Each structure stands twice: as structure tokens, then as C-alpha cells.
């Protein structure tokens, strides 16, 4: 059963990338990137799990082996970065919608 999170991770990443490849709506492309990022965050959190370990919170902690909080720190950092990236991409979509009047990725002016 321990492999279940990893299967979910692969499914999420594939889902996100296929949305970025197949969807024409740019907002859906942004959503695809976000879904991929969530999949990778899930991977990092899943890697932090150790059987019999205690969550690395010092307050009220039982006297047992604590897990190393590195994956949690990584996940938090990655969430922050993902937020910044998503906000950036959405603002570009807003700007493009204003100029081109469409959120279709095929309506572009730069090519060749």
C-alpha cells in the first residue's frame, strides 16, 4: 500500500503535462502546470514519511525518533515558488487577453 502515493504522483504529473500539451485554453495550461507542481509536492511529502517516526514538531512531542523535516521544508518552498509562478502566468494571460481578445494558445503573433 505504500506505493499508492507514488502512483498518485505519477498520475498527477502526467495529467498536468498532458493538459499543458493538449489544452488550447491558456488558463487550462496554467492549471496543468499547477497540477504537475502539486504532484511533485505530493512526492516530496510522501518521501518524508518514515514508519514509526514522529512528526518534527517539538511542542508536546513524545520522546521518540523524529523524522527529518527537510521534505516538509522543500514542499513549503516549492509551494511558495509555485504560487509566484502561477500568479505570474495568470497575469500574463490577463495581459494577453486584453491585447488579443482571446485565451486561445493558437491565437499568437510570434512564430517562425
Amino acid at each position, binding site marked *: 500500500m505504500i506505493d499508492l502515493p507514488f502512483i498518485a504522483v505519477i498520475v498527477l504529473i502526467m495529467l498536468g503535462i498532458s493538459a499543458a500539451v493538449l489544452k488550447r485554453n491558456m488558463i487550462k495550461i496554467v492549471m496543468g502546470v499547477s497540477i504537475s507542481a502539486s504532484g*511533485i509536492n505530493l512526492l516530496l511529502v510522501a518521501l518524508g514519511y518514515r514508519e514509526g517516526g514522529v512528526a518534527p514538531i517539538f511542542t508536546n512531542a513524545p520522546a521518540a525518533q523524529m523524522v*527529518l523535516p527537510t521534505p516538509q521544508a*522543500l514542499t513549503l518552498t516549492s509551494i511558495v515558488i509555485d504560487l509566484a*509562478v502561477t500568479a505570474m502566468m495568470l497575469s*500574463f494571460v490577463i495581459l*494577453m487577453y*486584453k491585447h488579443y481578445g482571446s485565451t486561445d494558445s493558437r491565437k499568437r503573433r*510570434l512564430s517562425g
Partner: protein
Amino acid sequence: MMAFLLQHAPALVIALPLVAAFAMPMLSRLGARAVKAWALLALLATESLVLLLGRDVMSGNPHVYALGATIPSLTTPAGYPIRIIIEVDAMSAFMAMICASISMLVCMYSLQYVRKKGGQDKYYTLLLLMTAGMMGLVCTGDLFSMFVFLELLSVSSGALIAFHARRGESSEAAFKFMVVSSIGALMVLLAAGIFYGQYNMLNLAAIGGMLRFGFLDKVALVLLVAAFAMKCGAVPMHMWVSDAYGEAPAPVSAFLVVASQASLYALFRVCFTLFGVAAATEIMGWALVVLGMLTMFIGVTMAIPQKDIKRLMSYHAVSQTGYMLLGVGVCLAVLGNAAALGSFGITAMQGGLFHVVNHAMYKGLLFLAAGAIIYRTGTRDLNKLGGLAHRMPLTAVFFLIGAFSISGLPPFNGFASKLMIYESVFRFNPLLSVIAMLTSILTLASFMKVFHSAFLGPELPEYRGVREMPPAMWISMGILAVFIMLFGIFPDLVVQYLVGPASQALLDRIGYLGGVL
């Protein structure tokens, strides 16, 4: 004081531009002049720190710095590396020097180029953030920090590409750039996760020391190589480059070239230091060589028909990246074969790394020259330009220097590095060398097209009022031009004191691992 600065220089070169960027929203209340002075001062300080650090590192004294430890060199307090560890060897110092120098010159150029009302503080904040991202990317010794700095670099450069947001095209270019670079960065994070799951480590040296090279490691290798090759613009993942470089403001394009070089550094670091001989180096080396050949040829042939001056130059930036991939890829392919490595592998790598610094300089000069044309005439369409040499002779001279250098004409610096690549690659596979030379010829042809259509011909009536560019712009371009000449006339000294130690450091995998463990 000097010793203190030197000891903490690895952390300070990243922290200084970062803090300068943080303080910018407060300084912006003092007006545009204060903002410009602050940005230039911060980048000057970074540059001098990097030079101080680089001189020490190049003399065979790599620095390792553990953030937050009781002493800076305490990397393994419990027998394994913890904390964020910055490791600056000669290769990192080499790249850091390029990044710091170009960022300073770009900032100097921007003082008069960027005229947008109300956006000045944001522009310089983003420029400083980009510098910090690059510095972090080339100095860090940790896979996760690499991801963080890569994203810092992408986000700030994405915002700078869309700096002139009233043009729809720049938002479009920035959007495409952000989508591909965030997916690439996610793949780097996925690789970091794969390594963490197997070895419980994120430090490059520690992972390198424990590498088993099973299936998952191969997957991680592919993810990292594909992501960094995409970030440096290898064909067929290069399409974002022409959009982003073409639509960004001219100094930002010059700086984005260096950002791509930083990704290239990460690619080399992963291939040589993290995996080394243990990886399927022959296959990986051939993969890089094939990518390099495609990049070179398709980049240059796409450049010839372009009508937008900056888009043309961005395809050349793609094409030149191919030379670096070729040179270093050949070295990677013969890494397991000591005889071949000694006879031509090291020279090929030195040629590739020499081309990195040359490319950063001449491509920067060319983009800045294109910026001067756009600044004075207001158009970037080559069909509308003509006869500018009558009015802007200095720009024409600088453009010619850059064009000769990128086409590999003696005695400019591009010739020296290209000659090293041709001759060493010829002994690996003659066909590759022939294609590389053909690419150079096509490069010259396409730059002659630009020079003819923009600068030569009779004076056009619409550009009668055009003047020479303002001083801050030509001073920064002049510095670049002088360095291009110097590097062209004394290539042996550059190879001996800069490129040689860098290539040695890249090959010295044991030394890099031993710095931390």
C-alpha cells in the same frame, strides 16, 4: 577585513544583490536617480566581491561554505552533509565572474536605455533579482537550491521580458517562457525528489559519492539533462528563446544570454560532477553532441530569413549555444577513455568553455547595439532600416566588432574558441567539424545581411534626425568591445588563467566531492 570578506564571499555574492533588490521598494520613494545609483552600486560591489573570490579560487583554493554552521567549513557535523552548502570551485567562479560582469554592464547601459515612467524601480529590482538567481545557480552545491535559484531566475526574467507590457507580443513571449521554464524547473525538482528518496541527501557532492546508477538514477539524469538543455535553448526546445530574447528590452536580452549560460553550467555540473564516468557517458555525450549539431545548424538557418533584428540575433544565440554543447559533449563522450581525453577531449572542453565567455561578451555587445538602433529609430524591422552608419558610426563599429567575433573572424575572440573546437572535434569526428564551420559561414552571411540593411546604403529621409547613442550606452558597449579585442589578441592567457582551471575543476570530480565530504 579582506580576509573576512573573502571567507564569507560565497554567501555574500548571492546575498548582496538579493538584499539590494529587497531594499528597492523603500528606495524608490527617493526618486529614479537614487534607484539607479543604488542598483549600480550594488552590482559594482558584487562584481568586486566576485573578482576577489574568483582570484582566490582560480589559484587552486576552492571555497566551501555551510550557511548557518558554527564555522563556515563545517559541512558534515554528524558525518553527513546538512544545511545549505555553497561550493565555489574554479568552474563556478568562472561563471560567476561572467554573470557579475555582464550584469554590471547591462545595468550601466540601462541607466539611459530604460525610459519608462514609474517602472524604473521595478526594472532594477528585477535586474538585481536575476543577478542573485544566477549567482545562486552557479555557486550552490545543492540540488534543491539549484531549483530555487532557477525559479528565481525564471520568474524575474519572465517579468523583465514582459517589461513593455503595452505590447501584446511581450506578454505572449513571457507567457511562453514561463510555461516552458516552470515545467523544466519542475522536472529538476522531480529529479531532486528522486535522489532524496533514494539517498536521503540533496547535496550534489553527497549524492555523487553514493551514486548507484540504477534505473531511477537514469530517470533523474534524463530529467535534469532535458530540463537544463531546454533552459539553455537546445533545438528542438529552443522556440521560447527566439520569442523571449526577441521581445525583451535589449539590455535584458543581453542578460538573458548569460542566464542561458548559467543553465548550461548546471547541465555540465550535472553531467560531469553528479554523474561523471559512472553514467552512460558515451550515450549522454553523443546526445549532447547531436543536440549541439541540431542547435547549431537549425538555429543559424532560422536566423537568416528573419526580418526583426532582435529575433534574428536570438536565433544566433541559439546557434552559438550549439558550439558549447558540441565542445563539452565531445569531452563527455570520451570521458572514460583516458588517451582520447588527453589528446583532444580536454581541448574540446576548453574550447566550449572559452566559447561561453566569448559568447556572453559578443552576444551582449550585439544585443546592446541592436538596442541602440531601437532606442534611436524606434523600429526593429530590418525592412524599414537603412543608412544608419551615416548618423551612428560608433554603433556601426561596435556592431561590426560583435559580428566579426560571432562569425569567428581572426583576430577576434570568437575565432580562438571556434578554432579550438574545430580542431579537437575534427579528431573525434570530422563531419561534426565541417558542419560547425559551415555554421560559422552562414553566421557571417546573416550578419552581413543585417549590417547591409541597417547601416549601409543611402541615408533614409525618416532617419535624418537620428543621433549617436548617449554616453552610458556607448561606454558599456565600449568596455565589452575592448574586452572582446583583448580576449582575441591574448587567448592563451585567458585559457591559461580562466578557462584552464575551470575545465580542470569540471573534470576533477573527486575534488568536488571531497570539498564537502
